[in-house]
């Protein structure tokens, strides 16, 4: 599968008696929007963590653009063009939104300068443009600790996108955001991503969001992939209804 951007083969991972990944094989071609669904503990985040190098699989391999990244750490994988956002936004709380963005933009530019000002006009302009794409320009000068949750989530994603990654993994982009805010937020994200040639994998619990924004849905159940098709087909799948969407509705 050399045409795939990301290719996972036979991934295995267990934590004690819990199997978080059981023979997971996924190929993702360039440009696709893939949603990962499944109930808590089904193995979605474990998959994201293995792709980004936070966890090492017990067996199996992961390649990016044909290059083996199975044993690499988060830093090396990030440098190869894989960025991620976090379920709980990982930001510098005592810094402004703009400073966070400046950091994200600088980190992907190779060696960090010891003397060039972080706040040079060009850098600021670039960072402000990125913030503006996520409707965050008004919050630029505010400390992150003063910003509401939804804004932090957007900033977290904007930072992931700053390095123009090939592959972007979003871990529950709309979790912790109110129902009314979810769709506008996903619209903002989709619009921001539209101008980028970026392949997206996102973990999501809300099936309405999944149907609307994903090209393809992969359903997990106890570490296994139980369905991998376009949204309609997956949501119509009997196993998915029993193990994923059914329980999600009960829970929601």
């Amino acid at each position, binding site marked *: 599968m050399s045409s795939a951007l990301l290719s996972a083969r036979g991934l295995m991972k267990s934590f004690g008696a819990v199997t978080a990944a059981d023979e997971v094989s996924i190929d993702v071609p360039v440009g696709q929007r893939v949603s990962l669904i499944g109930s808590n503990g089904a193995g979605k985040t474990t998959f994201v963590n293995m792709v*980004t190098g936070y966890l090492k699989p017990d067996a199996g391999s992961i390649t990016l653009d044909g290059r083996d990244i199975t044993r690499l750490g*988060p*830093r090396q994988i*990030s*440098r190869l063009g894989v*960025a*991620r956002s*976090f379920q709980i936004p*990982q*930001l*510098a*709380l*005592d*810094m402004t939104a703009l*400073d*966070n963005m*400046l*950091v*994200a933009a*600088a*980190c*992907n530019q190779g060696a*960090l*300068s*010891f*003397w*060039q*000002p*972080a*706040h*040079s006009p060009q*850098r600021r302009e670039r960072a402000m443009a990125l913030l503006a794409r996520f409707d965050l320009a008004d919050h630029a*000068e505010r400390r992150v600790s003063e910003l509401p949750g939804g804004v932090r989530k957007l900033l977290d994603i904007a*930072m992931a996108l*700053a*390095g123009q990654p090939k592959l972007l993994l979003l871990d529950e982009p709309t979790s912790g955001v109110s129902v009314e805010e979810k769709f506008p937020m996903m619209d903002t994200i989709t619009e921001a991503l539209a101008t980028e040639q970026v392949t997206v994998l996102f973990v999501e619990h809300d099936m309405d969001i999944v149907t609307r924004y994903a090209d393809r849905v992969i359903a997990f159940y106890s570490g296994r992939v139980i369905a991998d098709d376009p949204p309609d087909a997956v949501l119509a799948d009997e196993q998915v209804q029993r193990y994923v969407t059914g329980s999600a509705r009960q829970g929601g």
Partner: protein
Amino acid sequence: MHNPIARTMLAGVGAIVALMLAGLLMPKWLLFLSTMAISHGMVSMGIVLLMRSGVVSFGQGFVFAAGGYAAALLARHAGVNDAVTLTLGGGLAAALLALPFAPLLSRYRGIFFAMLTLAISMVLYGILVKSETMGGSDGFNVSRPTLLGAEISAESANFALYAVAVVLVGVLATASRIYGDSVRGLVSLAIRENELRVEYLGVSVSQAIAVNFVFAAFLGGIGGALTVLAQGHIEPNFSYWTTSGEFVFVAILAGHHSMLAVFLASFVVEVVRSFSNLYFPNTWQLAMGLFLLIVIRFLPRGLGSLWMDRLAARRARKEVRA
């Protein structure tokens, strides 16, 4: 001025000139006290650099002593007499000595980093106390240096060494400010706030901390060398843990936002120390302790936050308008 580096340099030159002029008016005791405050402030500024990347060293006595002994030994055995060369030599020696520890230490955070640095400084203390050739626990004296080839007379010694300290420290403090405002400086602050995120952005956090550790060692070595030249004496106490503690004290007092605050804090501590030593020699630590408690309670972000927060707010307002 639009170029921030030029603006910082100008401020640095201005501060150097102002301090030199002030030095001309100072009585001898104040000159000496200021020289101590400036050179000790250099060590604390190293700690501030480390604080800006989220770690605190409780063992900067290690580099303070390394720089001091290097300068003293160069003067005694290598025939080097020039004050500037000796000071820079002290800084380089401290940085070189710290270099092999940097990769190890940069893997630790919080109390583990602090305790490991403390341990290293106490090992050096132990070696220095037992070392016959370096004077053991008494240390040894260092004769008065020359300055750029010229002899320094006894009357002008205080001012000459003050001037050397002001110029060298002024240049290094300016460089540190530029570094603090640089791309790497901002990433350092982000490391302090959220290491995980920075690592996921593709930057090696431990490497950044290791770099700051070596910088801090260089600054600490400079401080040690300047102290030795001004005091004319070196002893193992330079590496003792209470010495390291005072440097941390000053760094906390100053906070990590302003370089100027470091020297202000250092000066305050020197003044309190020398007066308390004189008038209530047995309880002066008590006064210092209370002082620190008050600062932590009412100015948790340090003296520097008094004006840096206001400056930042003004800058933000200006940019919103523009």
